């Protein structure tokens, strides 16, 4: 993706910032090739990388899901062992949430937010690269547990002393995605730290910790960007709804993640140093883990779903040819959902015996959160009402989102009633509920976003017939897979159990669910293949193929690295749509001038600092395995992290000037660069 052809880069690079730091290190300035992708600070490229990794992990998590469904296809099955089954469902949940949905949302944040607010980059471009690579390495550490597991199964470790000393040998995490103590913790007096589970839990602890750092850094950056870098005239109530939901999500992340960070530190101290936070035999309270986890975990649900709601709020108006119905109410509802999200965590814990007053309070608050969600649904319906609806692939997926998410919402309200919930707890009914929310809701929303913005990202249009087929398969397969689980759950099938006996009346619907899961898998795979093919070989399309409403559609596709040749001045909501069809035009600041646009320099340092987490992340589970001298890997990792941050600080702000077409007097180019 080179955009060098139509302007001279680097007008006065040396004048603004020395390329050479105090230590004589030179900052890279390639704009193509692998070196560029490793050192880039361009929010668009970082977004594409986030998206690529997220789609890869979606497929990994999908394979894990299909293995689970294959095992459950018929009673008393032995496709995988119970031990392997535990690891599969744990890694399926963890992968889908932390490595699939969150990074795919982050891909949209990265690519879209600066374009939608009329900015040239995020507030801290290098911090953004740091978030990306920290996520990549955190994901790597988490999934490396599979390699240890396979090596163990293949018997490669058998001759080692440390391996003979292990009591439990589940190398991949096996506690479920919320890793409840005491199963994930320890027992025994005076620091014996006897563990219930193997080093998989240590991989999980450090992996989630590193991923949390990535999410926190990204969220600080995006709040700062949205609050501080809006174009002239882009007031808060003119922000596109997707940007608003990004802001709410980022605020949720910075306030919710510290709880899991502390919980993970405490669990790590229990397992590694014999502390007693969750150790029941020394007075620790395992229920504290549940509280800390869900204080994070429930806002996390909204962290997952709000970006998808933002995407749908962009797709529906575009293909209904109307502005969003009740914009202020949609924004306010999103903020209320975010706020209430912090006040409902104990509805995951009704069966722990909270007492009547907290149970009633959390029940009521959980029911209350259905109100702003319902308001949003009605606003979306109001948006479609009376519009000229175009059933494009993104629109089909967005409509699917509304329908499926609503079903998930209904079963959610059922859970909010504590007596009903105590019957449904740990049954397949719960599985059905949150897959309707997270898959029928979030995945359909994110897929709608992919099909909606792919023409902007790559300047190429995804194949529509394949997109319709894939969408149909996803929606059909999804309902076949998870619809029956409502029944199975109410008929008593427990979740997280690797098999079931014949004669419970569960055989038929489990088989149907497995068929549905495979159809769903084929649908998602087809949709992703279509997208990947589009990115490289798809048909070229115009800059504004959907008659878009927000600022990003006013730019060439693919978007040039400086985004806006001249910073826009916004006079209204849906600025680009008004510019095309209304009376209020988008203005232009004459900010580039003769000097051109100020661009941030690339850097190795975010990658280097993140690599510290990679070493430290590998070292800590290896310490737990009892591998000799593994502690030094952790020390080395923290050293690399420190050196990375230190050199990063010494680099100084950097940057160079880039001549844009507007500054050099030529008209804005319609992108024709061959790929």
């Amino acid at each position: 993706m080179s955009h060098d052809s139509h302007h001279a880069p680097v007008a006065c690079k040396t004048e603004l910032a020395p390329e050479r730091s105090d230590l004589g290190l030179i900052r890279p300035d390639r704009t193509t090739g692998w070196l560029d992708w490793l050192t880039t600070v361009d929010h668009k490229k970082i977004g594409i990388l986030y998206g690529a990794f997220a789609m890869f992990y979606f497929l990994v998590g999908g394979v894990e899901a299909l293995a689970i469904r294959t095992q459950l296809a018929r009673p008393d099955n032995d496709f995988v062992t119970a031990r392997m089954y535990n690891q599969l469902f744990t890694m399926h949940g963890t992968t889908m949430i932390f490595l699939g949905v969150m990074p795919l949302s982050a891909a949209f944040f990265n690519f879209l937010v600066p374009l939608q607010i009329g900015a040239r980059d995020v507030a801290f471009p290098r911090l953004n690269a740091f978030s990306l690579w920290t996520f990549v390495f955190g994901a790597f550490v988490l999934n490396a547990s599979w390699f240890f597991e396979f090596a163990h199964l293949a018997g490669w470790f058998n001759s080692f002393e440390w391996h003979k000393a292990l009591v439990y040998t589940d190398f991949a995490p096996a506690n479920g995605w919320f890793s409840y103590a005491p199963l994930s913790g320890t027992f025994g007096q005076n620091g014996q730290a006897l563990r219930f589970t193997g080093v998989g839990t240590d991989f999980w602890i450090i992996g989630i910790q590193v991923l949390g750092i990535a999410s926190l850094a990204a969220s600080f950056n995006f709040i700062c960007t949205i609050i501080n870098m809006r174009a002239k005239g882009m007031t808060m109530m003119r922000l596109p709804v997707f940007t608003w939901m990004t802001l709410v999500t980022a605020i949720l992340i910075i306030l919710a993640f510290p709880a899991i960070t502390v919980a993970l530190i405490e669990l790590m101290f229990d397992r590694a140093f014999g502390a007693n936070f969750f150790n029941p035999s020394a007075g620790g309270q395992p229920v504290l883990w549940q509280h800390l986890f869900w204080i994070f975990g429930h806002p996390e649900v909204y962290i997952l779903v709000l970006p998808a709601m933002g995407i749908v709020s962009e797709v529906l108006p575009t293909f209904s040819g109307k502005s969003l119905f009740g914009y202020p109410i949609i924004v306010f509802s999103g903020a209320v959902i975010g706020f209430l999200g912090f006040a409902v965590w104990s509805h995951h814990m009704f069966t722990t015996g909270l007492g009547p007053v907290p149970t009633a309070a959390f029940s009521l608050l959980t029911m209350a959160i259905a109100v702003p969600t319902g308001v949003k649904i009605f606003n979306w319906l109001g948006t479609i009402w009376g519009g000229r609806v175009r059933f494009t692939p993104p629109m089909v997926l967005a409509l699917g989102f509304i329908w499926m998410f609503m079903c998930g919402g209904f079963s959610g309200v059922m859970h909010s009633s504590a007596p009903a919930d105590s019957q449904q707890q740990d049954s397949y009914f719960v599985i059905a509920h949150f897959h309707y929310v997270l898959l029928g809701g979030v995945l359909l929303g994110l897929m709608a976003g992919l099909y909606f913005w792919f023409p902007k990202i790559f300047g190429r249009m995804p194949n529509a017939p394949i997109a319709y087929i894939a969408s149909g398969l996803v929606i059909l397969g999804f309902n076949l897979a998870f619809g029956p689980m409502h029944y199975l759950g109410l008929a008593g099938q427990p979740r997280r159990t690797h098999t079931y006996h014949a004669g419970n009346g569960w055989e038929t619907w489990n088989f149907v669910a497995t068929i549905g899961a495979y159809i769903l898998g084929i649908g998602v795979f087809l949709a992703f293949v279509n997208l990947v093919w589009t990115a490289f070989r798809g048909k070229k399309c115009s800059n504004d193929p959907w008659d878009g409403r927000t600022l990003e559609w006013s730019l060439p596709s693919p978007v040039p690295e400086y985004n806006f040749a001249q910073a826009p001045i916004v006079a209204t909501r849906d600025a680009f749509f008004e510019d095309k069809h209304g009376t209020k035009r988008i203005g232009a600041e004459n900010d580039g001038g003769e000097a051109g646009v100020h661009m941030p320099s690339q850097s190795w340092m975010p990658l280097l600092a993140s690599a510290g987490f990679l070493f430290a992340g590998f070292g800590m589970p290896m310490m737990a395995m009892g591998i000799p001298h593994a502690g030094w890997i952790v020390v080395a990792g923290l050293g690399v992290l420190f050196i990375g941050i230190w050199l990063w600080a010494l680099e100084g702000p950097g940057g160079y000037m880039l001549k844009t077409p507007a500054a050099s007097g030529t008209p804005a180019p319609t992108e024709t660069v061959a790929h």
Partner: protein
Amino acid sequence: MSDTAAAHEAPTSTGIDHKKLIMWLFLASDCMFFGTLISTHLLYRKLYPAGFTDAEGHQRFIQNLFNIELTSFSTFILLMSSFLMALAVSAMHKGQIKSFRRNVLGVIFFGLIFLGCQVFEFTHFYHQGLTIQNSVLGSTFYVLTGTHGTHVAIGVLWLILMYFYSFTGKLGGHMGALDVEVAGLYWHFVDIVWIIIFTAVYLVEYLGPNGIWGTGLPAVAK
């Protein structure tokens, strides 16, 4: 000390510098972080007011363990370091680099005294029989105060690097003052958190004859 690509040129939408805003956001997040740790400690104090049992099997009470005079002294030192930090920030805004260096050296020195007191305190408590492993109290106390100590240590390291960086002549002007101010925000926050910890972990143990939590025993057992 960190990156802002166009921050020194383009005015921001709110008029607040990016660096200052992101530090405030980080501190908001850190509030939740310490809030969780302090809650853990207080929950367990309420649940197990009786303290801990040492290696010889004697029941120990936290009031007998604490050396409140020493901790008050280190708290005072940390408070005074915040005062010096404010002077350093002010000096930097006026472009008085020498005054900045003097004050920041004072902050570093006081920070190190605080850390020294904490190391002494931890060693002392350990020899008195409170370990991270022998009780829930030990776990929550050491992890909570140790995490705060880590924050102080990071702050000291940051200020030491900034002190030496000032000799390169590149720490100056608006951006230099901003960098120092951001470090100052962090330092003041760490200080305020200590005041909360000092109150919630140390001082409340002295309310009433058996502390605010009681001893969990029928008789006064001190």
